[in-house]
């Protein structure tokens, strides 16, 4: 019954976005609009979330393995590179255009709003396009390496 754990985590996450108001694009845009009627609420959401997650992740670091899995799946990358900065920049532009990031967008599917459904479909298309592009780059790289190996 381990599948109950991620389901409950999704429910708690969704409740957090709902109670804080961050599921509403207008609320998020109010935070991003520092030259207008600025609403600092999102900064409080992040500070409160970090006040829990920083000690919580330290606790996880001390345990050998998760309750219902064989290992921790931690991100392997470190260091600042161009894809990180370019990707975050593109995401920021999209976030600022509508006020939706992936969490609130998926949660808002519950309203069956046509605009949300179109946004989520476009978001999925953007993700698939990225992965296909990466795949074709990897394949091209492998082909070049194979060709140079044969030449040598």
């Amino acid at each position, binding site marked *: 019954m381990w599948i109950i754990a991620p389901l409950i985590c999704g429910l708690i996450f969704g409740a957090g976005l709902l109670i804080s108001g961050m599921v509403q694009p207008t609320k998020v845009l109010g935070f991003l609009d520092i030259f207008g*009627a600025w609403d600092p609420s999102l900064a409080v959401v992040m500070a409160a979330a970090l006040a829990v997650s920083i000690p919580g992740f330290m606790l996880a670091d001390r345990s050998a393995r998760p309750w219902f899995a064989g290992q921790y799946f931690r991100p392997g990358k470190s260091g600042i590179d161009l894809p990180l900065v370019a990707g975050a920049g593109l995401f920021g532009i999209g976030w600022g255009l509508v006020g939706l990031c992936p969490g609130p967008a998926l949660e808002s599917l519950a309203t069956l709003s046509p605009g949300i459904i179109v946004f989520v479909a476009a978001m999925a298309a953007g993700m698939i396009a990225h992965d296909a592009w990466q795949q074709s780059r990897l394949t091209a790289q492998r082909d070049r390496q194979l060709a140079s190996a044969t030449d040598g």
Partner: protein
Amino acid sequence: MANFTPVSAAIGGVLIGLSAVLLMLSTGRIAGISGIFSGLLNLRGEDKGWRIAFIAGLILAPILAGLIGYGMAQPTLPSSWAVIVAAGLLVGFGTRLGGGCTSGHGICGIGRLSLRSIVATIVFMVMAVMTVAITRHVL
């Protein structure tokens, strides 16, 4: 700052942080929504169960809240479909290229004190603020 709601923001933030910590402690996974969702978009069959369960919980939350009288309002979106589609494409492509979104970098990554996530969060915040400044105050 007439719209500032610090109490509900703090309660919501604590719940989001709690969810991220519980997901890590229970399944060993990072609660980055863009990563969880994009893992469902390929045809390989592995490790989809927990992703589906998490996103199902996320969508169920406002439905359950509605049953006890706290339903969510229809989100306000731009009237232009082109803007909605462009924003969706940018969010999808950008979060994959940059390896995370508001939750993955902003809550989990900074929560793990990752320099990558701190830089990513500053970059997407600055770009989003600039985008709103241009669309609301320049155009």
